[in-house]
């Protein structure tokens, strides 16, 4: 049924003349009903005045950065998402994917009611049931396990949730009697956490002070595109470039030019996996030149002895002169900062690479300095214990136990491991092996399709929650997420579902989880934060505090200098330093190219592919829309007689797919790259059946230091299929051709 209102109807409504502003909107809504109301709401809700926008602050969950957002609503509908100016993470700004959150809320493919499987498992055939029925069934299953003392056979696998929802999950599983609670997120940088644990003995990431740096040397970290907190980094980048008199310099080391590489002053196409060696060679050069004055200089001279620029030159493909030049610039610039991540952290030697980057910072004197690496304070929240974010190894262990005889129930919350893990992990088969699978999600996807019962979730714009940004911003910050619109469908938030289940399962659960709703739970938890911070314990005082956080969207404490013992750090790094050669799956003679999948700006790890705005957003580096592509160096392409749009067969040792070629000017000839995000089989009308998923054919290589997936350690071979497709993109000529569009020629100042 169309909801379009025809012109005559519209005139009728306007002709009535009593409606005032917003009439068209209400009328369009009313026309859907059989009974039409001329004045739908005599008593308007207090936050609802026709024609006037109301803004609500909440938190973005499109990636794990935790940006504060302000949502503009009109007549009860969300109209636009902007950054919350008072939030220290994004400071009023927001990325493309964050702004497309409206496409999540109003997505036509949302799950609208609880669903019960009515066909074969995995067939994707479901029929609607009521919430009562769904919750009674699930609490029956979980309650029986609890009574039989077999609750440890229940597993909870969640996407990356933060804040008190994580706490609630942990409490629920604990109360149930299960220790099997894990979080999975493709983009979780396990190697970065492992490297910082080894060097600084910290469980949370430090703060990389790009803003105040004058020389930013990035080893593979696409800090402007997808690494950790891209909006925060972009704000900082703007300041680094033009915020002060002295313009900061950016250098990027990576095999395939990322968005950050494109914006750097110098791009260094090092061999994949050699980033750590380069960092150590630079540290070597700094120590050798006597530019490092620390008391442990002698120790470092010895420790770095094996990494002279000359010896690293060949292994990295970068000349010794260039290594020494960059090292000298890095040491001379004050303050300077080296960061590492992306493909550098996703090699088999990923953790070692990132330890090496920390060493370079240590030798460069950047640790604990403004414009270098600063430390985040211990949080005031009890929930600051590390979240159970699973590395690839841990996921494999989980799947092994799911395949075992004991596993009874698997609860999946907002995660899609079938898509975000290699086919070699056999996720689908492991999930299918579990007798009973409960799904919680707003959308049907490849993993949810395997469930027996699905509980539809509120989107983040309809639910209560809170968030402590990780990485932090150097001081304690938290924000509360509140619903900005009434829920559209018969959905509930994950917190409310967990609390309802706890209540129905009975036993000691209701007593230990007495909250009536997620909102109530959050308020109680924040009440204890308030009590810890204030002498005023009155309810009135707390209400004021609570309202003020909702109004500003953020709560924070003033920064305090965070010092860490320098000497211990130096010793820890001296013992941690050491590089292994990266290894790759597939022999070089047959599988010529190292494949580097990368997080797409529009789709992140694939979750954004069902958003029409994101499908139609040109990729920043290629301007391609609506499809996947494989990036090849022009020389490689010429040698293999491959042109743009030639459909290639890409094969690794464990799998294959087809995708059109794109000639990309800034990639090593021995590397091919491909964006992650497309290739969905079952993810709504906008995503399904488009492109291919590069994660699928990754060999199950891991980073030895952290157990994380080494997604840059797979070799592939490519061959032409003989077919050709039209690569849809916005770019025409990508050379200036003397038009002086960029204003670089003289006489145009």
């Amino acid at each position, binding site marked *: 049924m169309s909801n379009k209102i025809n012109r005559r109807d519209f005139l009728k409504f306007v002709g009535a003349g009593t409606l005032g502003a917003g009439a068209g909107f209400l009328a369009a809504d009313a026309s859907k009903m059989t009974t039409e109301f001329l004045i739908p709401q005599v008593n308007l809700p207090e936050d609802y005045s026709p024609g006037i926008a109301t803004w609500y602050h909440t938190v973005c969950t499109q990636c794990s950065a935790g940006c504060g957002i302000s949502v503009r609503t009109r007549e009860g509908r969300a109209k636009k998402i902007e950054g919350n100016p008072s939030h220290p993470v994004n400071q009023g700004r927001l990325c*493309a994917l964050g702004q*497309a959150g409206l496409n999540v809320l109003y997505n036509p493919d949302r799950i609208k009611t609880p669903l019960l499987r009515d066909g074969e498992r995995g067939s994707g055939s479901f029929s609607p049931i009521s919430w009562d029925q769904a919750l009674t069934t699930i609490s029956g299953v979980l309650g029986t396990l609890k009574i039989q003392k077999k609750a440890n056979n229940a597993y909870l696998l969640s996407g990356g949730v933060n804040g008190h929802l994580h706490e609630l999950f942990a409490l629920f599983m604990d109360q149930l009697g299960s220790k099997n609670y894990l979080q999975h997120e493709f983009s979780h940088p396990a190697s970065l956490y492992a490297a910082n644990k080894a060097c600084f003995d910290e469980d949370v990431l430090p703060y990389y002070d790009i803003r105040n740096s004058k020389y930013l040397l990035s080893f593979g970290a696409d800090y402007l595109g997808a690494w950790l907190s891209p909006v925060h980094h972009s704000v900082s*980048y703007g300041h680094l470039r033009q915020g002060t008199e002295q313009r900061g310099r950016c250098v990027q080391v990576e095999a395939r030019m990322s968005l950050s590489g*494109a914006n750097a002053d110098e791009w260094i196409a090092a061999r994949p996996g050699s980033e750590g060696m380069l960092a150590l060679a630079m540290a070597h050069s700094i120590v050798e030149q006597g530019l490092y004055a620390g008391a442990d200089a002698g120790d470092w001279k010895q420790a770095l002895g094996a990494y002279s620029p000359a010896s690293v030159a060949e292994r990295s493909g970068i000349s010794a002169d260039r290594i020494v030049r960059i090292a000298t610039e890095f040491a001379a610039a004050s303050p300077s900062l080296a960061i590492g991540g992306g493909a550098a952290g996703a090699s088999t030697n990923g953790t070692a690479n990132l330890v090496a980057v920390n060493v370079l910072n240590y030798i460069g004197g950047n640790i604990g300095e403004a414009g270098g690496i600063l430390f985040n304070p211990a949080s005031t929240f009890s929930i600051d214990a590390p979240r159970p974010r699973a590395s690839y190894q841990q996921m494999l262990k989980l799947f092994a136990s799911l395949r075992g005889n004991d596993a009874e129930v698997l609860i999946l919350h907002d995660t899609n491991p079938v898509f975000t893990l290699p086919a070699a992990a056999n996720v689908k088969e492991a999930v299918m092996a579990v007798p009973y699978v409960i799904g919680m999600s707003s959308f049907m996807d490849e993993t949810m399709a395997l469930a027996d019962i699905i509980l539809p979730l509120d989107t983040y714009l309809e639910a209560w929650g809170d968030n402590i940004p990780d990485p932090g911003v150097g001081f304690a910050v938290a924000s509360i997420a509140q619903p900005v619109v009434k829920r559209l469908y018969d959905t509930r938030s994950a917190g409310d579902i967990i609390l309802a289940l706890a209540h129905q399962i009975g036993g000691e659960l209701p007593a230990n989880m007495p909250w009536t709703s997620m909102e109530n739970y959050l308020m109680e938890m924040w009440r204890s934060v308030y009590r810890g911070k204030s002498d005023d314990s009155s309810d009135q005082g707390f209400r004021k505090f609570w309202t003020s956080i909702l109004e500003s969207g953020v709560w924070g404490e003033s920064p305090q200098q965070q010092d860490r013992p320098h000497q211990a750090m130096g010793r820890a790094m001296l013992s941690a330093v050491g590089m292994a050669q990266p290894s790759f799956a597939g022999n070089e003679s047959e599988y010529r190219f190292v494949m580097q999948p990368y997080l797409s700006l529009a789709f992140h790890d694939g979750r954004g592919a069902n958003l029409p*705005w994101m499908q139609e957003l*040109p990729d*920043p580096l290629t301007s391609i829309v609506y499809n996947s592509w494989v990036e090849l160096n022009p020389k490689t392409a010429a040698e293999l007689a491959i042109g743009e749009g030639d459909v290639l067969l890409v094969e690794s040792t464990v799998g294959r797919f087809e995708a059109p070629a794109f000639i990309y000017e800034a990639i090593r000839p021995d590397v091919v790259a491909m964006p992650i995000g497309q290739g969905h089989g079952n993810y709504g009308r906008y995503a399904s059946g488009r492109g291919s998923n590069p994660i699928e054919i990754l060999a199950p290589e891991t980073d030895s230091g952290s157990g994380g997936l080494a997604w840059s350690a797979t070799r592939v071979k490519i061959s032409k299929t003989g077919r050709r497709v039209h690569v849809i993109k916005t770019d025409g000529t990508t050379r200036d051709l003397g038009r002086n569009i960029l204003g670089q020629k003289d006489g145009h100042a």
Partner: protein
Amino acid sequence: MSTALEKFKKYRKPGYYDKFDYHWTMSIDLDRCTGCEACVVACQAENNLPIVGEQQFAMRREIKWIRIERYWEGEYPDIKLQFIPMLCQHCDQAPCEIACPVFATYHNQDGLNTQVYNRCIGTRTCAVYCPYEVRFFNWFTYEWDEPLEQQLNPDVTVREKGVMEKCTFCIQRIRQAKDAAKDDSRRRVRDGEIKPACVQSCPTEAMVFGDLNDPDSQVSKMARNPRGYHVLEELNTTPSIVYLKRVHTDG
């Protein structure tokens, strides 16, 4: 015809633009711009831009009032990429305005190049005349899959088949700010009070919007920056967008 020509001559009289209340101008610092496309989505959300679909996109019928262009320089491994956001330049001597047979596009009192949708008869001449290729034609009446239409901004018209459209500098935001100033008994809008959607979203603060008539406005200061230039300046379109060229450091 002669009347139109006379009007046009009068309209082109030197000094005409000094009479404007405001001279809305945008500066874009290419040394800050990272090409992250946040502005593209901000514009899409604010201005009810349609999703044209894969098939129409393949025929270059996309509608993006602002886009990021990229230009490569050099060869691997000494290769550089530069981004430049391209949107309607709101030219003071706009070629598109000369072209329109029905005066659907004209210059308003604020120096904006304005498109009147219900005057437009869809000859598409303006798009041909525009050297910046920033005018977009509605080949169809595009639909929003239910309930995506609930997101549509009620302050902005949804365009229909046969109409040309382009960047408006978020004229709805300009109007609101002017109204607010009037309600506040102020004669003029304060500098920085108006932020078009793209400017608001820009993570690196590469874009600044304001009144060029006010010499103290931030955008006037940016426009005086020695790095400032206009794209395709030799065409004498006198654009209202000042780009600040990227700083290149060698070695």
